C-alpha cells in the first residue's frame, strides 16, 4: 500500500464524517460535491473535507480503496455512505441522521463545523482521532 493510500485510509477511519470532494467546503468546484455537503449541512453534521483536485492520484487511490468510481464520496464512521445521490436521498428520508446516530452516537450533532484536511501535505500531517 502506498503512503498516499495509507493516509486516505487513515482519514476515512479517523474522521467521524469525511467528504472527498472537488474543491473546498467554501468553494466546491463541482455541483455534486456541493449537493453532498448541503445534505450534511441540512442535518447539522460536522464534517471534514478532502479536496481530491490537487493530485489525480488521490482519486485513483480513493476509488481503489472504496470500490466507488465517482466523486464526491461521503464516509461515516469509516463506512462509505454514498455519493451525492445517495446522501441526498438518505437526508430526505431521515436515514442519514439514523446512520450518523448508529455510527457516531450523539457526537455528530455538536456543531456543524466544517474543516479541510489534506492527505498529501507532508508538512502538516493529519491529526488522527484516537
Amino acid at each position, binding site marked *: 500500500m502506498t503512503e498516499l493510500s495509507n493516509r486516505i485510509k487513515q482519514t476515512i477511519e479517523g474522521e467521524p464524517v469525511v467528504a472527498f470532494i472537488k474543491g473546498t467546503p467554501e468553494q466546491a468546484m463541482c455541483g455534486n460535491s456541493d449537493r453532498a455537503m448541503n445534505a450534511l449541512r441540512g442535518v447539522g453534521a460536522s464534517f471534514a473535507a478532502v479536496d481530491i483536485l490537487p493530485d489525480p492520484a488521490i482519486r485513483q487511490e480513493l476509488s481503489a480503496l472504496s470500490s*466507488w*468510481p*465517482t466523486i464526491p464520496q461521503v464516509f461515516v464512521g469509516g463506512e*462509505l455512505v*454514498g455519493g*451525492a*445521490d*445517495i446522501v441526498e*436521498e*438518505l437526508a430526505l428520508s431521515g436515514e442519514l441522521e439514523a446512520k450518523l446516530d448508529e455510527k457516531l452516537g450523539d457526537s455528530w450533532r455538536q456543531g456543524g463545523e466544517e474543516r479541510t484536511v489534506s492527505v498529501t501535505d507532508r508538512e502538516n500531517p493529519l491529526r488522527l482521532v484516537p
Partner: protein
Amino acid sequence: MSQRLQDLLEDAFPDARGVEIVDRTGGGDHFHVTVVSPRFSGLSLVDQHRLVYAALADPLADGTIHELRITTRGDS
C-alpha cells in the same frame, strides 16, 4: 448516447421493470439514469449504485459520461 446507456443497462438488468435515461443538459454527457429491478432487493444503496456503475463502466471510463446521477429501486 442515451440509447447506448439504455442498451447497456437493459443487458445488465434483463429483469428490470424500468430503465429510464434522462439527458439532463441535452449535451449527451450529463445523464440521470433510473433502474427498477428486483435484483436490488436486499442490497444497500451503495451496492445498488455499484451495480449501475459496473454496467456503465465503459462509457464512464472513456469519458462519454461526464456526470451521472443514479436512482435505483428494488420495487416499483
